[in-house]
């Protein structure tokens, strides 16, 4: 089930919310949690019920291993090790086995293991489970004795299939002690509506441009068309993913949870270092806390520091998908980050801001070209097309068509990448009068409901509704 589906908006939510709030309002927290757990499992099982066992297995692994990992000493270490191995085993089997077999087959021949279908969201819930297990072992959180609460944490539907990666410590207290209130519900509705708008109005529309252009035969390409296509994809992936995160955060807020932010206007970054502080923040911080710092972070020799950076970025790449282009994508950013850190970071800061933005934008777009490509040869061809290396004309009729046809989408997407919301909020905060407060809240309400209605219109009128991040 997806948040931008009719069944979610008009069956799942109308069934869940009244039942949930009746019990929550009456103070039956265990009952409301149980309802949330049942609905979360239904949400997960909606499209592929046969994979429900995978998430239940993940719950079991993390519940039991954390239970024993809470004990100090050898037994705790053993439980932690077993838990991590089982978590990674599950992830490797479902996500990477085909890739590994394919590559071993290329080297040694005869590694046909058949097609293993990846359950949706396995990368997200596995990382959540592991963070819980590690935090319990390190004593950062109390072990959860009630398996239903662990199941709720891992399977909580708003963040289940596309993040943000919520850590147990983020919602530990809220599992049993949250307080749903009108303000949170209204904030949640606004956030959800905006996220739905990002996904249904912008990402889906601009995604069509990207898939149409990037799926074209080479003979229709021009340099500018390659850029238009990959810029469209750059917008699509941001609005798709951040829209989903907004919806998750909004739904969490409606239900009384406060999930961490996942995006902070990443495309306004002036460096790649800054970009990765603004993009998919829950994943970056996960790798920082559970891989980079345990490896020694930057408090070690230069060589080890470099090693740590490369390990983290190769893992970041491969986390996104089981293919060489994702590994290359991770390495690409590792190299840039190392360069910014050790070679030209200071120089970059001294350049005019517009140059810094341009530098970041180009590198980010090139990164998405690698990321988008189904294989390395496609990536090479696309990059060559973008950088005048395939003897293509600079502009052709396809470019003109796409610009004329989709100018509105590009303009809207560009504006929505900018922190306009923050500027508006700052303005109203500076002019803090009862009138401006009223104006702010009324505009916010009308905008949110308007976007919600428009999104429904786009959903109904469009069958093109794929989520990019489902493959993760």
């Amino acid at each position, binding site marked *: 089930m997806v948040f931008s589906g009719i069944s979610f908006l*008009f069956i799942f939510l109308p069934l869940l919310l009244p039942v949930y709030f009746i019990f929550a309002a009456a103070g039956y927290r265990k009952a409301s949690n149980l309802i949330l757990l049942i609905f979360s499992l239904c949400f997960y099982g909606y499209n592929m019920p046969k994979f429900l066992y995978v998430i239940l297995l993940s719950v079991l692994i993390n519940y039991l291993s954390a239970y024993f990992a809470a004990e100090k000493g050898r037994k705790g270490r053993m439980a932690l090790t077993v838990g991590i191995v089982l978590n990674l085993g599950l992830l490797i089997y479902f996500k990477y086995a085909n890739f590994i077999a394919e590559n071993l087959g290329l080297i040694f021949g005869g590694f046909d293991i058949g097609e293993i279908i990846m359950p949706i969201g396995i990368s997200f819930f596995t990382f959540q489970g592991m963070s819980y297990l590690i935090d319990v072992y390190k004593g950062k959180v109390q072990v959860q004795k009630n398996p239903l609460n662990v199941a709720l944490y891992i399977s909580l539907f708003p963040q289940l299939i596309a993040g943000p990666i919520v850590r147990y410590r983020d919602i530990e207290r809220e599992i049993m002690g949250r307080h749903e209130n009108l303000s949170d519900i209204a904030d949640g509705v606004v956030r959800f509506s905006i996220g739905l708008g990002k996904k249904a109005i912008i990402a889906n529309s601009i995604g069509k441009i990207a898939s149409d252009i990037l799926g074209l035969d080479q003979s*229709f390409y021009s340099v500018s068309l390659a850029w238009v296509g990959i810029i469209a994809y750059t917008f699509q992936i941001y609005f798709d993913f951040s829209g989903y995160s907004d919806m998750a955060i909004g739904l969490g807020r409606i239900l009384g949870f406060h999930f961490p932010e996942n995006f902070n206007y990443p495309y306004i970054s002036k460096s790649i270092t800054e970009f990765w502080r603004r993009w998919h923040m829950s994943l970056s911080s996960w790798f920082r806390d559970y891989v980079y710092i345990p490896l020694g972070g930057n408090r070690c020799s230069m060589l080890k520091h470099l090693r740590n950076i490369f390990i983290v970025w190769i893992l970041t790449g491969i986390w996104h998908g089981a293919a060489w282009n994702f590994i290359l994508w991770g390495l690409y950013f590792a190299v840039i980050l190392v360069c910014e850190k050790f070679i030209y970071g200071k120089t970059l800061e001294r350049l005019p801001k517009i140059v810094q933005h341009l530098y970041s934008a180009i590198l980010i777009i090139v990164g998405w070209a690698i990321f988008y490509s189904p294989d390395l040869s496609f990536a090479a061809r696309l990059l060559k097309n973008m950088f005048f290396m395939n003897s293509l004309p600079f502009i052709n009729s396809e470019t003109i068509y796409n610009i004329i046809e989709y100018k509105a989408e590009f303009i809207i997407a560009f504006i929505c990448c900018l922190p306009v919301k923050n500027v508006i909020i700052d303005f109203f905060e500076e002019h803090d009068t009862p009138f401006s407060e009223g104006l702010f809240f009324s505009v916010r309400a009308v905008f949110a409901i308007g976007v919600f209605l428009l999104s429904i219109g786009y959903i109904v009128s469009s069958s093109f509704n794929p989520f990019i991040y489902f493959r993760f």
Partner: protein
Amino acid sequence: MKRLWEIIIVFCFSIIIFTVPVVMLCEEKEEKLLYENRNVTEVPAFSGKTFADGSFFEAAEGYMSDIFPLRNSILAIRTYIDGTILNKPVINDVIYQGEDKPMLPIVPHKASDEAATDKEVERMAERISYISDICHEEGAEFYFVGIPEQYSYFRDKYPEYIYNNEENLKMEERLLFDKINKKGVKFINMNMVFNNMGKDDSLYSYIDHHFSFKGAYETYKTIVSRINADLGCNVDILEDGDFKYKEVPNPYLGSRNRKLMGVYDIPEKAMIADFTNRVPFRRTDDGKVMDSVVYTYPMDNDEIIDFMIYMGGDVGETIFETHREELPKLLIFGDSFTNPIETIIYTGFDETRCLDLRHYDKKTISEYVREFKPDVVLMIRDDTRYLDFEGNGDIK
């Protein structure tokens, strides 16, 4: 103030999410989606299999989207936003350039590959040659009739910056007619005929992917003239005095304007032939005797009509019997382009049989020819289907 607006937000959100499912449940369900030219998505029976493989829920999602309250209005608003507010030249995959130019489709890009096309064309030419040979064995004359599809006919009316597939259309046409010519197959290339006539716009619909009735008439005239010339027979060709063009006053929904939900339209009416003296005939569709009519008339002047007005749409097998044994027997097979031709061509033959192999599977076309023993066989294809090996291209 803040609290009041919070209440309003939650209230509006709740009203929307709770009202829609209630309306979906209570509203009378349409079975067909007129503007989308299809049935409402069918939800498969709930079973362990459809549940486990997700197909039940997938179809349910499509079904709910199809029966969504005010669906047509929502689609119309979206169409209006795209066309008027966002000023898109292409709306719902249709190029709308105002009322004085035809509505044209967006054509998927296809790389031009002569070697690969040549192979495909050779395969199709062999099939055509095969049925042509069978016809000759049975004493029938065979003609392959190629007709340009609407977007092909109006290919020069595409905006310069929009792909019109011209290269492939030209290449396929050139290769196919070259090859069937070399194999001794008789053909009529209506694209060439229309070009020689000066490519009159009125021969094709501005709002549908077919030709207009005038285009069908010119095709009919060309075919019968050729038959007369080749066979030395004297099949009557209906001329101006035999019928008048008559405009059907009803709103006409073509495959192009259908996609624009009535938001953008071109005032075009369907045309039919109003005969001075109609040749009497007996009509049988798929073995069932029908009324002796060739047009499906609407109930009143407001009813929306479409291309189905000609022959009532696509039928597997239609037989016209005029009981004039001195005249030749005709067999036509092809897609819906044959329908308006059928409404007039039967007048010159003793018996005319029309097959649409997309809907007819009792016999193969060669079995049919051997059994029916016609004097003339016409295979009619539009030029976007020259390399379609399914349906009427599935010649056995």
